[in-house]
């Protein structure tokens, strides 16, 4: 609560910067439009206006400030335009409509979640294997770490085409990319977490004559929970980015990525901006959900976040 006011001020400053930037960014478009409507603009030829920067043109034409906020196809939409577009496409359209952002959001979200579940599950299994098998540790771990320095996302278009040419389309190829992106953070985090118990704790279990399975379920797994949540939060946002990017180069017809592309190609910036913000809000909600789960679980277990 102590940081509520600072956070709000930072957000307010960003919003203010955005609102101010709208004027020079849209000035050239506005001036052209104003001239068509016979409003006096200085200078009065488009060529002369191109010579000036957005700020310069704005200073010469203060009467046009209001118009920059109401363009149909602005270069930089103002916050209220994005908000109105989002309200119209989220709340006022039926969710089955192709113009509803909820519909597109669900298309992306379902691929994200499916991929995230697959990637996390496989990641935890591999981490267990690595912790209990030396050969696996030495063979796989360097690759798992190295793979985090590689732009895996570049693989996305190829995976879609590869799976498409053997007849798999729709949700699953996107989920594969999401799974792939969430997989490695979970492996690396879980290996760290499962190795958390120190020699003293492991020795204590040995004096209890605990079996390997008991050692895993009662010591290693609980000890890894803070690390698990830290990786889950990284993994879920990586999964969402993966699903969005998977929609981009492949001509997908639905999903946030498809919406951004449609808005871009048909010159409807508001569509792109609304999809972008909807994707950001979805990401924030997912990460927030895991933060709440994390706090609740760790408090029940009497632990602290990693």
């Amino acid at each position, binding site marked *: 609560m102590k940081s509520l006011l600072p*956070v709000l001020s*930072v957000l307010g400053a960003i919003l203010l910067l955005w609102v101010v930037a709208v004027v020079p960014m849209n000035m050239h478009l506005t001036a052209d439009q104003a001239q068509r409507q016979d409003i006096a603009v200085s200078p009065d030829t488009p060529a002369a206006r191109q010579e000036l920067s957005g700020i310069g043109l704005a200073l010469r034409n203060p009467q046009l400030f209001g118009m920059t906020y109401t363009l149909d196809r602005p270069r930089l939409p103002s916050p209220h335009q994005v908000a109105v577009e989002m309200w119209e496409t989220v709340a006022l359209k039926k969710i089955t409509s192709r113009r509803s952002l909820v519909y597109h959001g669900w298309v992306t979200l379902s691929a994200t979640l499916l991929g995230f579940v697959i990637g996390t599950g496989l990641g935890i299994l591999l981490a267990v294997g690595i912790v209990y098998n030396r050969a696996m540790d030495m063979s796989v771990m360097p690759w798992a770490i190295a793979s985090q*320095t590689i732009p895996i*996302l570049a693989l996305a278009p190829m995976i879609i085409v590869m799976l498409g040419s053997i007849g798999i389309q729709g949700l699953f190829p996107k989920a594969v990319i999401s799974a792939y992106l969430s997989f490695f953070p979970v492996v690396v985090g879980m290996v760290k977490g499962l190795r958390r118990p120190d020699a003293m704790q492991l020795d204590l279990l040995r004096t209890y004559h605990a079996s390997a399975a008991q050692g895993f379920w009662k010591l290693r797994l609980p000890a890894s929970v803070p690390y698990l949540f830290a990786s889950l939060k990284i993994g879920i946002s990586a999964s969402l980015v993966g699903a969005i990017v998977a929609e981009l180069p492949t001509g997908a017809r639905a999903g946030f990525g498809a919406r951004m592309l449609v808005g871009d190609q048909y010159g409807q910036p508001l569509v792109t901006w609304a999809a972008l913000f909807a994707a*950001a809000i979805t990401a*924030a909600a997912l990460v927030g959900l895991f933060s709440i789960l994390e706090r609740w679980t760790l408090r029940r277990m009497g632990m602290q976040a990693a």
Partner: protein
Amino acid sequence: MTGPAIISALLVWSVGWFVNTRLANSRSAHSRAVQLLVPAIFGLTLLIMWELLVRMLEVSPIILPPPTMIASRFAGELPILWADFEQTIIKGALTGYIVGMLAAFGVAVLADRSDFLTRGILPVGGFMAALPIVGTAPIFVRWLGSDWQSKAAVVAVMVFFPILVNAVAGLRDTSAMQRDLMRTYGAGYWPTLFKLRLPAAMPFIFNGLKIATTLALIGAIVAEFFGSPTVGMGFRISTSVGQLALDMVWAEIVVAALAGSAFYGTMAWIEGRVTFWHPSQRKSQK
């Protein structure tokens, strides 16, 4: 052909795995050579299995080209790959990385002067770092044209937040005792910043810089999917996918992987030089 193919692949796997198990459990398992050898054998095993399965099952190269085909394509198209590398990595990713980094440092030092700003920027920056910022690519391509400037802008925004958050957190990471010591020396704000707080922040800053290397490459490549001149890694990947020239796509991915590892490795090397005093950098004594 399915039977023999699978049997031979399994054979290769068991040989590789047998060797690795022996090596990992041998007495020299802690030596540097074995620690490099084991993952190398593992990688090689996978490559041989890939090659065998693709050749023996006669998988179409449109679905999955064998590694040798990718390697020959890589060797044959070096000039194109180099041009793409220059366009995407040097012009797009590296420029954006440097701009984003400098901007983040600037904001971090400014924010650091006020506790109020720090408390506001840390949560907001951490939140922004988790968002799919790569989605801003179409907007920047529209604003700045399809050449490398728009890619550099996407990269700069993507790397800005992780570096900012780490830098701000790092600058706070000195104890009251250390700051008091500087005060007893009569050091003002700037000497304290340069001699105590910046060095103390370096491990954090490099953590952010290392995370940002991968982001920079992702941003530069993905932004090219939205529009680019007829050169660049993202452009080549998307057009080659369209022409079903998957060996070229794989060759570009090899370039991306090499560039990513080299970029990360460089930052890790510089980190080792700058923060040699930090416990995580000390050589463990056995």
